[in-house]
């Protein structure tokens, strides 16, 4: 799977796609946090989005995946490899507390965090 070799680019595009979806819901970048891990064994990217902003989670989830599909037309099966869990949180920091404890997983939070703040 090509995901491994272009992880950095993919993480960036995923973050941008989620950011677009959040903006559609009226959530500015400062009002959400996105963290993620990449599981080397399964090529799976697991994203967690936390927001303290009122949100229609179902709509945000659907918009995020629509943007992800649109952002990566060259990888039509990208959504097979990505999961997203949306949390309403009191503090955005909560989303970073769940650091990975799994041996095969790499933390993508640095990438997504940079994009959150860019």
């Amino acid at each position: 799977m090509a995901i491994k070799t272009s992880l950095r680019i993919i993480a960036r595009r995923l973050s941008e796609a989620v950011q677009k979806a959040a903006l559609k819901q009226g959530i500015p970048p400062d009002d959400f946090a996105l963290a993620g891990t990449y599981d080397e064994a399964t090529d799976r990217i697991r994203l967690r989005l936390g927001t303290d902003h009122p949100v229609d989670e179902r709509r945000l989830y659907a918009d995020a995946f629509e943007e992800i599909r649109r952002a990566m037309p060259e990888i039509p099966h990208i959504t097979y490899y990505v999961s997203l869990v949306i949390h309403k949180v009191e503090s955005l920091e909560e989303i970073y507390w769940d650091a990975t404890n799994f041996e095969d997983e790499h933390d993508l939070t640095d990438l997504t965090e940079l994009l959150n703040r860019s």
Partner: protein
Amino acid sequence: MGLMDDTTLDNLDKAWQEREKEAKALAASFPATSLTLRIYALEIRIKTIICRRLGIDLLPGHCKTHELDELIIFTGLLGTLADPANDGIRQNWDILVRFARERLNQIRYLPGSALKAADLNEQLNALDNPRDGVWTWLSRLP
């Protein structure tokens, strides 16, 4: 591919139904334990779907895993989940996969009160939402 002769379709079928009954019996008094049993039931039910869809009576050795997002590949349902029309089911699936992967083991070592009501309700909704709950979805499969 190795087949696990100790894990028959018949046993799996009985096991998920039993876990569900046990979960229902404990739901009011021990909701965290009940939820744990329901996640076990979900995993076992997915294993029965794999056997049925592959037309075999024994679980393949490759499916000897508790990882729901690995098991779903063998059901042939991953494409259905990735269909934009099923984003609601997919969202609930992602919630349950994360819970099973990152929380289930922790819960075993914590008092039931550690599982907050909102958290419990989120998982139960992800399973049983009448429109796009994962358990609801699996129950609708032919």
